[in-house]
Structure formats: C-alpha cells, structure tokens
C-alpha cells in the first residue's frame, strides 16, 4: 500500500515538473520570437532609408550626366565644322566639363558616405547584437546566439528572404543598366553610320568598329538573358523558403 502511495506521489510530482518545464520553454520561445520580430522591423527601416538615399543620389547623377553629355555632344558637333584653333578651344572646354563631372561625382560619393555613417550610428546597438549572434557560427539546432531550434530556423529563413530581396533590387538596377547600354549601342551605330557616310574612315577602321558594336550587342543580350533567368530562380527560391516552414506548421 505504501509503495503504491509513493508511486502516485512520484507520478504527480513528475507531472507537475513536466508542466513547469514546458511552460518555461514556451515563455522563452515567445520572447525570442519577439526579439526576432523587432530585429526584422529595424532592419527593414534601415533598408528603406538606404534605398531612398540611393534613389536620390542616382537621380542627381543621371541629371548631371545628361546635362554634361548633351553639352559635350554639342561641342563635338561644333568641332566638326570648326577651324584648328577653334577646335583646340572646344577640346579644352570638353576636358573642363569632364573634370567638373568627375568632381561632382566625387562630391556625391562623399555625401553618400556621410549618409551611410549617419545611418550606421542610428542602428549601432542592433548591429552589436547581430555580431554577438553571428559569433556562434552555423551549427544546426542550437546556435545563432540564444536562438534554438525552430526560432533559429525561422530567423535563418528571414535572413535568406532578405538576401533574395536585396538580390532582386540589384536585378532591377541592372535592368536600368540594360536600357542605358542599348541606348549607348544605338548611339555608337549612328555615329559610325555618319562617319561612313562622310568617308572619314578606312574600310578596316569601319569593320573594327563594327566588331566592337557586335561584341557589345552580344554582351547585352547575354546579360538580358541572365537577368531573366535569375529573376525566375529568385522567385522560385522565395517560394521554396515560404514552404520550408509552411510544411512543418
């Protein structure tokens, strides 16, 4: 009888202990998930701010380059009809314009650096936390700072998602590069046609320049195809990541 009593007491005790353990585990999981969410929000804010700054700087650059390029084009056209003395002066003007362009670009770069430093200062405490988290390597199950198991997996999935979105942003920027590259190739073709019509170049020179144009066209086509494929791959990977934890819920 006494033994049965002891067994019952032991059982009740172990059940209470088990409940306590599972409750404590749940609590820590919740707090960890909260921390992950907060981190994500701060990172998103930082990314948004950085994107805005980049856009502004890109717009400034485009405007600058458009203005200076059109001026240089005008001057080059003038050069064709000018006397040797005038053409020297025009050449000097073109060089001065190019110098100005470079200086302004450097200024923009410096501004960008300043902006980055400011942003980094704003988010420093979080970065320190991130570094601490990363210091524990990539072992499965129980790494990434204090994160363990499922919480760790979800945080890794979030990181991968962010990498994909960064990569997609880069692809979008490359599409702009493709458009401007096509424009440059068209301009080069036009210039070559004009030069041919005016009989300024020998047949060898013309064919060498045609080869250059063809090569650029091939590279452009190659990049366009890669961009298309890459976009498809990134979308597929995004779907994969969504499913990684969807299946296990």
């Amino acid at each position, binding site marked *: 009888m006494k033994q049965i009593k002891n067994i019952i007491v032991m059982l009740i005790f*172990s*059940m209470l*202990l*088990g*409940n306590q*353990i*599972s409750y404590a585990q749940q609590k820590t999981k919740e707090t960890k998930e909260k921390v992950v969410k907060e981190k994500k929000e701060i990172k998103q804010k930082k990314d948004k701010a950085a994107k805005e700054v980049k856009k502004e700087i890109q717009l400034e650059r485009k405007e600058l380059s458009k203005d200076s390029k059109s001026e240089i084009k005008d001057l080059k056209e003038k050069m064709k009809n000018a006397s040797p003395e005038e053409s020297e002066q025009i050449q000097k003007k073109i060089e001065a314009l190019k110098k100005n362009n470079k200086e302004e670009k450097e200024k923009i770069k410096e501004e960008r650096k300043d902006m980055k430093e400011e942003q980094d200062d704003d988010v420093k405490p979080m970065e320190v936390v991130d570094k601490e988290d990363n210091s524990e390597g990539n072992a*499965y*199950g*129980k790494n990434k700072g204090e994160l363990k*198991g*499922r919480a*760790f*997996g979800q945080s*890794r*999935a979030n*990181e*991968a998602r962010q*990498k*994909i979105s960064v*990569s997609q942003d*880069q*692809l979008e920027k*490359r599409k702009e*590069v493709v458009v401007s*590259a096509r424009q*440059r*190739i068209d301009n*080069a073709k036009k*210039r*070559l046609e004009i*030069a041919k019509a005016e009989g300024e170049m020998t047949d060898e020179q013309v064919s060498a*320049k045609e080869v*250059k*144009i063809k*090569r*650029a066209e091939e*590279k*452009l086509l*190659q*990049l366009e195809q*890669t*961009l298309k494929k*890459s976009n498809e*791959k*990134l979308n597929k*990977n995004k779907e*994969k*990541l969504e499913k*990684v*934890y969807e299946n*296990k819920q």
Partner: protein
Amino acid sequence: MVLFLSCRDTKKEQAETEAAIEEIEAVETEVEEISTEVEKESKELEEALKELDSI
C-alpha cells in the same frame, strides 16, 4: 513519461530544423551564385561599352 515526450519532441524539432537549414543554405548559395554571375556579366558589358565610346 513527460520527460520522455519532451526529449522526443526536442529531437524531432532539431531534425526538422536541420532539414530546414539545409534547404535555406542551398537557397542562399544559389542567390550568391546569381549575384556573382550578374555582376561578372555586367562588368563585361561595361567594358564592351567603353570601347564603343571611342567610335
């Protein structure tokens, strides 16, 4: 019993996490490869375009 169940759940969760991490790492590797390829081809295009400026 409770301890046994808790241990079993932890092991199961660990195995699931391992599988998930493997998938995530595969995705990350592919994303990095994509970025590298696009970067390389962009550079090649830029070089080809620079040669056109002399025309």
